[in-house]
Structure formats: structure tokens, C-alpha cells
């Protein structure tokens, strides 16, 4: 930490310049419209409008993204845990080769797949009915908020697991072995020994997932009907139907505040950790 911060600024300058030139500057053009009244002058009227029309959608978005992030976290830890601590070689090998595939499917395709998979008469229900595990009449469509969450989790679990399993693999095996030798169950080793050491990676993965899910348009658009819906759909709708960039950008500001909060929570945690270390 003793090095001059000038050098640090020099190192970060290209990245900052890129964000500045390719996002901040162009965003400035349209962002100003979110804060100006039609006649000119500062105004928060577009935020009023955004709130009046989309308050439900803001809550809905928060609910979807937070739930998906939590589920993603739990599942990624489970899978990465089995990969690291699993003692059944065939299971670990199978899992390692399986879990990654959704990573390569773009969101828009994932949405398309899920739309036909999760529907009432979709492939999932048809298979379950075909296996005699369910009566056809019991089949219900999951194409609503549940569909969105399932798609997000399906897509993001491999992302977080990929980062997490890597971090776990590079832990000192001796500590884990010692824990096992002391007779601790694998679950305890995972939660008490492994997880604290990779919590950093987990959190980064979850923050990035959170922000990514917040920005996806195709999934809420294609998987679920539009009442209520996520903010990205509302933004696209404001622009495409009314050419109303002001309200769309006001929603953008709200969405950025939400992702900023998630990042801030992570960074605070980080600072505390460093202080404690």
C-alpha cells in the first residue's frame, strides 16, 4: 500500500477511459433527459412517472433478482462442494462434465428453451406425465415469475460454480483432509472450513450474477407474460412504444442504484474483512 497512488491511477486509466468514452459520455446525452422537464430545467417528474407506473415492477424485479441470487448461491455452493469434497469419483466426474453447459447458451436462447420446456404442455410436464409420475390434469405452467427465476438460476449457477470450484480446488487439501480425519462430516467441512476461505469469490460471482440478471431483457420478455414484469421490459417498452428515453433512463437510474447497492454491500464486507485481517 506504500506505492504512490499515481501509479495506480495510471494503471487503471485505460479501463476508466474506455468506460468513460464508451459509456459515461454517451450515457450523458440521454441521462440528462431523465432529469430535465420537457421545457428544460431540472426536474424529477420522470422519476415520479416511473414510480407511478412501475412501482410494482420495481418490487417484482427486486424480488426476482434477489431470490434468484440466493438460489444461485445455494446451488453453486452445493455443486462446487460436491466437486471438491465428493468421494464418489464417477459422480464427481459426471457432475464436472455436466454442470457447465448452460454457460454457453445465450440468454435469449435459454429463454426460448425454457418457454417450450416449462410450459403446461411443455417437454418437462410431458416427460413427467409420460413416466407416470403425474396426472395430465395436475400439469401447470411455470411460465410466470417461477419461470424467470428458473431460467436465471439455470443460466447463472454454472457461472458462479465455475468460479467457485476453481477457488475451492486451489485450497490446501491438507486442511480439508485433516478436517475429515477429525471426523467432521463433509457438510461441516464445506460450511466451516471451505466456504469461509472462498467467500470472496462466491460474493464476486453473486454480485456479477445479480447485475447480469438485472440487465437481461429477453428472459422476462419471452418466458413470462408482462403483468407484472421486470424493469428491462419496461425500459424497452418506453423506448419502443413512446420513444420516451426520459422515463426509460429514469428506470435505468433506478436499476443502476439497485446494482450499485449490491456492489456496495459486497465492497463493505470486503473492507470489514480487510480491517479484521
Amino acid at each position, binding site marked *: 500500500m506504500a506505492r504512490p497512488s499515481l501509479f495506480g491511477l495510471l494503471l487503471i486509466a485505460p479501463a476508466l477511459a474506455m468506460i468513460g468514452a464508451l459509456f459515461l459520455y454517451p450515457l450523458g446525452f440521454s441521462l440528462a433527459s431523465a432529469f430535465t422537464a420537457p421545457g428544460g430545467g431540472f426536474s424529477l417528474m420522470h422519476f415520479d412517472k416511473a414510480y407511478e407506473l412501475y412501482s410494482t415492477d420495481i418490487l417484482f424485479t427486486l424480488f426476482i433478482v434477489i431470490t434468484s441470487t440466493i438460489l444461485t448461491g445455494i446451488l453453486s455452493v452445493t455443486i462446487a462442494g460436491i466437486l471438491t469434497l465428493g468421494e464418489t469419483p464417477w459422480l464427481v466426474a459426471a457432475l464436472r462434465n455436466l454442470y457447465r453447459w448452460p454457460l454457453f447458451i445465450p440468454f*435469449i436462447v435459454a429463454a426460448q428453451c425454457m418457454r417450450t420446456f416449462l410450459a403446461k404442455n411443455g*417437454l418437462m410436464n410431458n416427460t413427467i406425465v409420460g413416466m407416470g409420475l403425474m396426472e395430465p390434469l395436475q400439469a401447470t405452467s411455470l411460465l410466470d415469475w417461477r419461470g424467470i427465476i428458473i431460467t436465471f438460476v439455470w443460466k447463472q449457477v454454472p457461472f458462479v460454480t465455475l468460479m467457485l470450484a476453481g477457488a475451492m480446488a486451489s485450497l*490446501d487439501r491438507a486442511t480439508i483432509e485433516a478436517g475429515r480425519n477429525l*471426523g467432521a462430516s463433509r457438510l461441516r467441512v464445506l460450511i466451516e472450513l471451505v466456504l469461509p476461505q472462498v467467500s*470472496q469469490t462466491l460474493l464476486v460471482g453473486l454480485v456479477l450474477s445479480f447485475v447480469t440478471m438485472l440487465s437481461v431483457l429477453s428472459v422476462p420478455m419471452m418466458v413470462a407474460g408482462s403483468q407484472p414484469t421486470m424493469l428491462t421490459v419496461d425500459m424497452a417498452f418506453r*423506448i419502443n412504444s413512446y420513444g420516451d*428515453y426520459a422515463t426509460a433512463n429514469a428506470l435505468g437510474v433506478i436499476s443502476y442504484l439497485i446494482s450499485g447497492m449490491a456492489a456496495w454491500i459486497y465492497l463493505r464486507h470486503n473492507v470489514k474483512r480487510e480491517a479484521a485481517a
Partner: protein
Amino acid sequence: MTGNLHTLPSASGHTRLRNLRAEAPSASGARFWSFGGTVLKILGLAVFAFLLFGPLANLVLWSVAERWYTPFKLPVSYGTRYWEVVFRPTGDAMSSLMTSVSIACLTVLVALAVSVPAGYALARLKLPWRTALMILFLLPQAFPSVAIYINVARVFYSLGLTGTITGVVLVHAAHGLVYSVWIAAAAFAAVDRDLELAARNIGASPLRTFFTITLPLAMPGIMASAIFVFLESLDEFTGTFFVGVPQVTTLPLLLYNASMGGNYQIASITALILLVPSVLFMIVIERFLKADVLSKVGQ
């Protein structure tokens, strides 16, 4: 394994170890449990595989389905008609694919070139408003992309960057910075400072320390971020449209049109084609990584 954002085992690991009390498992009925366990594992794996590949099975089915409608549970007739449509001479699928892959590779290079130093600075050096800077990099994900790209296009038109690969790569790279900067920062933060100090003590220059100690240790994380940047670029279409079209057309543009419009066959085939470079890139990276990790073992 890729994605090695590791925290090196710290002293805290050993203290935690001491807290674990021995709870010897009972030996009785072990065989029963192990049999039951295997059945459970197989079942669990089967359910997992079903949930994982079920949606993908749809993709494959649609790519060869020529007719599929209610009340039929599976396609009524199969065929390769739509593959012929995608690969027809006027379809330009292959050249768009080549363009997409080239752009994605260049994007990875550009994104890594700027985010490795940035990540190092964010993790190791004293920076004013570090938190604010980190949050700044999330910006590209939050706002409606159309609103940003129309203005980028306006700027690029006056610079003559529209319709060039350079322009598209820049736009994609800026978008990928979210992943590469954040992950690089985390990867550098996880490198053990003691190792760097040791190198400095035996007389290595700061630059040499960085290239021989810090960078290799952070490499797995950086490579993981490369994969995400690659995939992000391969899926991007809004920026490509505003900055690249009509001179530069990529495969996701076709995919987007087909998928949003419900042309399932075309969309599924395009997605399957895009799967090839994604998986290849992952394999290449893993090869590269494994060699790297192995070389460290000998040291």
C-alpha cells in the same frame, strides 16, 4: 478446472480446524447406507441432468423438427430442411460466424489488456474512491443498451468507426469490462502478499515479481474472466447493430431476429452453431491453464 479465483489457505484455516470436534460415524448398517447412497446419487444425478439438459433437448429437437404441434408430444416429422435454410448460399451463416468469433477473440484481448492493470491497481494499490470506481464498472449493465448505443453510434459516425471491426470490438470490450475488471481485481486480491515480498527480498524487481509471481498466481481467475468476456461478446447484438451493421454482421443478429420472432428452428440451429466456438474456446483455455498449473508444480 478453470475459474481459479483462489484464496490461498491461510492460517485461519488451521484455527477453524481445531474447532471441529470428532464425531465418529457409526459402523452399523454401513453397507445398507452405501447401497442406498449410490441409488440416491444416481437419482440425484439423473434429476440434475434432466433439469440441465431438458431445455437443451428442446433446442436439439426443434433444430430437426419440420412439423410439431398439439396434440403431439414430440415432433410430427423430422428433417434437415431448416439446416439447409441456414446454410444456404445467400444465408451468410458461415461468414457471420467467422466475424463473430474474430470479434469475440479480439474483444477478449482488448478487455484483458486494460483490465489486468486496472484489476491489479484496484486490488493492490492505494486508489482514491476505490468503491466508487468499482461500482462505476457496473454501469454498462444497468442502463437500457439502446439508449447508450445510439449515442455511441453518433460519436463513432463522426470518428469513422462505425461499420468497422474496431468499433464493434471496442463496444463489446467496454461491455465485457464488468466481468474482466471485477474478476481480475478479485484474483489479484487473492494472491498471497508474502510470496511477492519473498521475491522482492531475494532481489527481484517489482516488474519481474509481477510477471513471475503475481500474474501467474492470478492467471486462473483472469482466464475465467476471459471466458465470460468471450461469451458475452458472442451473444451481443444491440451494440453490433448500431455500430457494425451493415458492413459488419454477426451471427447473434440472426439469432436475435429468429428467436424473438418465434422462428424456433432457425434460432435453435443458430444457437447450436454458436455453441461450437464457445466450447472450443473453453477447451483451449483449459488446455492452456492446465499446462500453466502443471509448470508451477515443478518449481
